[in-house]
């Protein structure tokens, strides 16, 4: 890949790259796209070696807060050892890590408690770094001007249903968005700057249904949230869904297949709205190659994401950008250099 060396003398921004579970283990193309896009934007990513599950706020925090704090603190401690702020691509991981970070930074008793356990694995929570969501890194650290400048081609007014997801903005007191939760705009701006249209839809800020351990324990309830959201998106004429959370992505992607089956008598027609992670589309607008953005399927694996076929919509976009989806698919990963 061609790398644009920055002519500025300043050291490139550096982050500890926190993967979580769903992205590396189920939606790896999000990892690929994000690594490459951030690299292209001049960001250096340091892997967090041996990082574990955040642990997920809806489930593990619900069972035992102290354990949740300690394992979360271990992950933050790894980023501290990297000496670089932590960036996560997942709302759930963000929810856990920023909450743990905040609690341990502000509550000495909790910090001592956690460190008394961490010492057994030779780790320590120091509170020396910040926890950030990828959206914050893009919108605030790099900034909209930088994003705008890096865009080389617009995506032709693709109608996107932007799904923020809950923990990206809430609880707002420990989020960087100025307390706005009812009608935040930053994600819409990020989508609009790459030439997409952010389609307004009812209950836009409603939960996808996956969180809080609801998906894992009582799946049909979580899918009923999803059914409603999908109906609202379809009613508003969205061509695709854009997310910045892999768990929302899973719920809205795999969820469509599940909704189509569980609620087949309640929905007017089966859903087939492709779901993209934001960096996949951003990279495309930055002129990057679809193969570097996890946008092209190069395997014959069954039962793997993306579950909703992206080919129809991608074929259309690719055509405008001068690619041919089928052609791209034929190129194998190995032969691409």
């Amino acid at each position, binding site marked *: 890949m061609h790398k644009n060396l920055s002519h500025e003398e300043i050291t490139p921004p550096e982050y500890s790259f926190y993967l979580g579970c*769903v992205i590396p283990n189920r939606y790896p193309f999000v*990892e690929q796209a994000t690594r490459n896009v951030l690299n292209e934007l001049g960001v250096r990513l340091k892997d967090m070696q041996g990082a*574990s599950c955040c642990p997920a706020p809806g489930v593990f925090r619900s069972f035992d807060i102290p354990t949740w704090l300690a394992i979360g603190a271990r992950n933050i401690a790894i980023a501290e050892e990297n000496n670089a702020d932590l960036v996560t691509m997942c709302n759930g991981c963000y929810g856990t890590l920023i909450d743990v970070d905040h609690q341990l930074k502000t509550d000495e008793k909790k910090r001592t408690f956690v460190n008394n356990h961490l010492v057994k694995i030779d780790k320590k929570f120091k509170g020396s770094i910040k926890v950030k969501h990828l959206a914050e890194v893009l919108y605030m650290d790099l900034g909209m001007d930088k994003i705008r400048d890096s865009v080389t081609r617009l995506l032709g007014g693709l109608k996107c249903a932007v799904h923020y997801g809950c923990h990206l903005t809430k609880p707002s007191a420990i989020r960087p968005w100025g307390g706005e939760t009812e009608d935040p705009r930053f994600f819409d701006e990020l989508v609009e700057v790459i030439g997409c249209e952010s389609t307004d839809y009812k209950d836009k800020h409603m939960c996808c249904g996956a969180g809080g351990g609801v998906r894992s324990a009582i799946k049909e309830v979580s899918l009923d*949230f999803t059914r409603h959201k999908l109906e609202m998106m379809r009613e508003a004429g969205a061509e695709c869904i854009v997310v910045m959370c892999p768990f929302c992505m899973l719920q809205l992607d795999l969820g469509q297949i599940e909704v189509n089956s569980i609620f087949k008598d309640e929905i007017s027609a089966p859903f087939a709205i492709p779901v993209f992670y934001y960096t996949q589309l951003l990279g495309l607008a930055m002129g990057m190659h679809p193969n570097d953005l996890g946008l092209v399927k190069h395997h014959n694996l069954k039962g793997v994401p993306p579950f909703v076929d992206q080919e129809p919509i991608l074929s259309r976009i690719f055509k405008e950008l001068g690619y041919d989806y089928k052609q791209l698919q034929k190129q194998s990963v190995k032969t691409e250099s």
Partner: protein
Amino acid sequence: MEYIKRNRIDKISAKISEEIVKDDLELIRACYQCGTCTGSCPSGRRTALRTRAVIRKALLGLDQVLDDPDIWLCSTCYTCFERCPRQVPVTDIIIKLRNLATQKGRILAPHKSLTHLLIDTGHGVPINDKKWNDLRESYDLDPVPPTVHKYPSAVKEVQTLVKSLGFDKLVEYKPPVNTNSKKDEKPEKKEEKATRKGRKSKIKK
């Protein structure tokens, strides 16, 4: 007889709310039962969850709040908390109630298996099938991510923490055959040693 219902509250106590207050959640007592939370709740629109009633039951110390499945229907979206005019941390209170329910053994079965996955692998959603490694590879990524999956010592660290906090006992975790821990005196001990791979294959099915 079916019309005779002798339901009544015959005991009111602060035992649940005191547990909650202890965890820096004293604002639960500020709740004035306005219903903003319930009306904002995407789960309540399709389930029996009534966040306001959950708070009320907790304040009155009714055990039912820990026994009913309602508290497990919250997707933790925090809309209720953001809108609450008395700034009651409704979501965090529900989480705390779930902690208390778990201590009573009320954790749901699928959740329990999830905790065992975490203890076994360090991931809540682990790579438990080769297809995921292959999928990673197809996107030009290392088939094994640089997480706990790549560093066996890291899994051990997570397990050490879990034991140190007594979480394994809380969720009735029984380790599979484990070569790493000599102290284990569980029945599986007798089985032949398994490598980490062996354990993974066990999860696979």
